[in-house]
């Protein structure tokens, strides 16, 4: 009976389930983006848009449950920050897909972009693992460190792309802008996932 009592009330469980769902959708979007960059199947862009819409619904559900009174008040700002960062990451995946649809990726940077998308996907999977561990009250330092290492690799690849970008021919201003925006959103994802993992770590520390 004590275990049942300490398991917490339905609001907290519902919020955590919705947060997990939000992360799962992000991971699915990341996986789809990797597939898109690998196979160049443009119909996957629509799938990413759909996933982003579902993600928005999950985010709204989490926030409304938290504002209805789930969790101790001092935890709520950190929880909301985590959810917002995940949602911002979701937006960058959507933007990346949208800009990719508008450009033709040059072969000189294709491999780097695919590797970045793959790292982004791995970071998502580690973030889900970190979230599951954090919810169980376990240490997530290793996962946070792994995310930081991957983010550093993405930064290195971003540097490589900027070295080669001068060789990429651009037809007009808009083509150049979409290229720049595509690269910007592709590489911003890792920063947001790193921030989300830091927010999750702060959350676990403040709950000790």
């Amino acid at each position, binding site marked *: 009976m004590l275990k049942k009592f300490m*398991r917490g009330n339905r609001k907290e469980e519902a919020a*955590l389930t919705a947060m997990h769902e939000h992360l799962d959708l992000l991971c699915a979007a990341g996986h789809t983006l990797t597939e898109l960059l690998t196979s160049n199947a443009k119909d996957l862009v629509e799938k990413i848009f759909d996933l982003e819409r579902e993600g928005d619904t999950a985010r709204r559900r989490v926030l409304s449950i938290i504002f209805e009174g789930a969790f*101790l*008040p*001092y935890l709520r700002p950190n929880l909301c920050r985590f959810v917002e960062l995940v949602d911002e990451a979701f937006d960058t995946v959507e933007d990346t897909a949208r800009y990719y649809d508008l450009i033709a990726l040059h072969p000189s940077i294709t491999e780097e972009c695919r590797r970045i998308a793959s790292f982004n996907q791995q970071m998502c999977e580690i973030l889900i693992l970190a979230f599951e561990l954090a919810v169980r009250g376990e240490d997530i330092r290793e996962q946070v460190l792994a995310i930081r290492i991957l983010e550093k690799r993405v930064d290195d690849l971003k540097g490589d792309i900027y070295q080669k970008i001068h060789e990429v021919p651009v037809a007009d201003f808009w083509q150049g802008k979409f290229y720049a925006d595509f690269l910007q959103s592709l590489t911003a994802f890792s920063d947001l996932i790193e921030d989300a993992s830091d927010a999750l770590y702060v959350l676990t520390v403040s709950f000790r």
Partner: protein
Amino acid sequence: MWRIAGGLFLGWSLGANHSANIFGTAVASGLVRFSRAVWLTAAYVVLGAVLEGTKCMATYSKLAALHADAAFALTVSTAVTMTGLTRAGVPASTSQALVGAIIGWSLLNASPDFGQLSRIVVCWLLTPVAAMVSSAVLHRGLERLVVERIRSFSARNRFFLVGVLLTGCYAAYGLGANSVANVTGVYVTAGLLRDDMGALLGGLSIATGILTYSRRVMLTVGKGIVPLDPFSAMVVVLAEAATLHLFTQLRVPVSSSQAVVGAVLGVGVAKDLKTINARTVLKIAFGWVLTPVGAGALALGAHAVMNALRL
């Protein structure tokens, strides 16, 4: 019977002020709704006053013989001292003010029982010490035995939520049991009230203060204590409750504010000694000396004036 109004007023102000020590943090942080906090506090204060409030009343009767006019003058002197010190921002204790007033009053024509006084003073000194020790022990003990074992987000969330409510109710019970003697104890000593009636009326007057005028103090004190994490805040309230209950069993009214200060220091000791601000501690200690001396001087003055006017 109109003289009892002084005591009831003192009870009302005690309730309005001291309820902040119980659910202040929880209300200010949004953990417990204000209405739920005040109703729980009021109910448990009355329960504590009725069940165990009479234990501390005999202490005042042993301190000095008092008549009905004296009882009225003493409660008014205490209320004035408390108001002055509260306005000056010095943490003050109702029980210290009242004992100081009784001693000041009885210096003129009756000799106070200094043996009883020394027992009370020892208990005053021991109040923050007991709260500090119990808070440090509870903090370390509960952390190792309970908190570290409850790891999941929801379970820990639930533990803090229920813990805050339970410790708050216990603290309210302790406040009622220990503080009601401050409100109507002198009237029981003066023979104006039976002790069970004194406990009930005193408890109700404290509850009225809690229900009608505690919001502002509760939010002010609560926001001042918010930097404490929920576990430490819960331990502080539990240590305060245990200390008040302990001294109720020893039949000595002590200060809930001093118990809270001691308990906060105990959490500081358990976590890191560097967190303790020596200047603040000295300011609080200054208030502990000033309260009985100020109330005593006021009661002595009142007595001298009443004698001169042959009242």
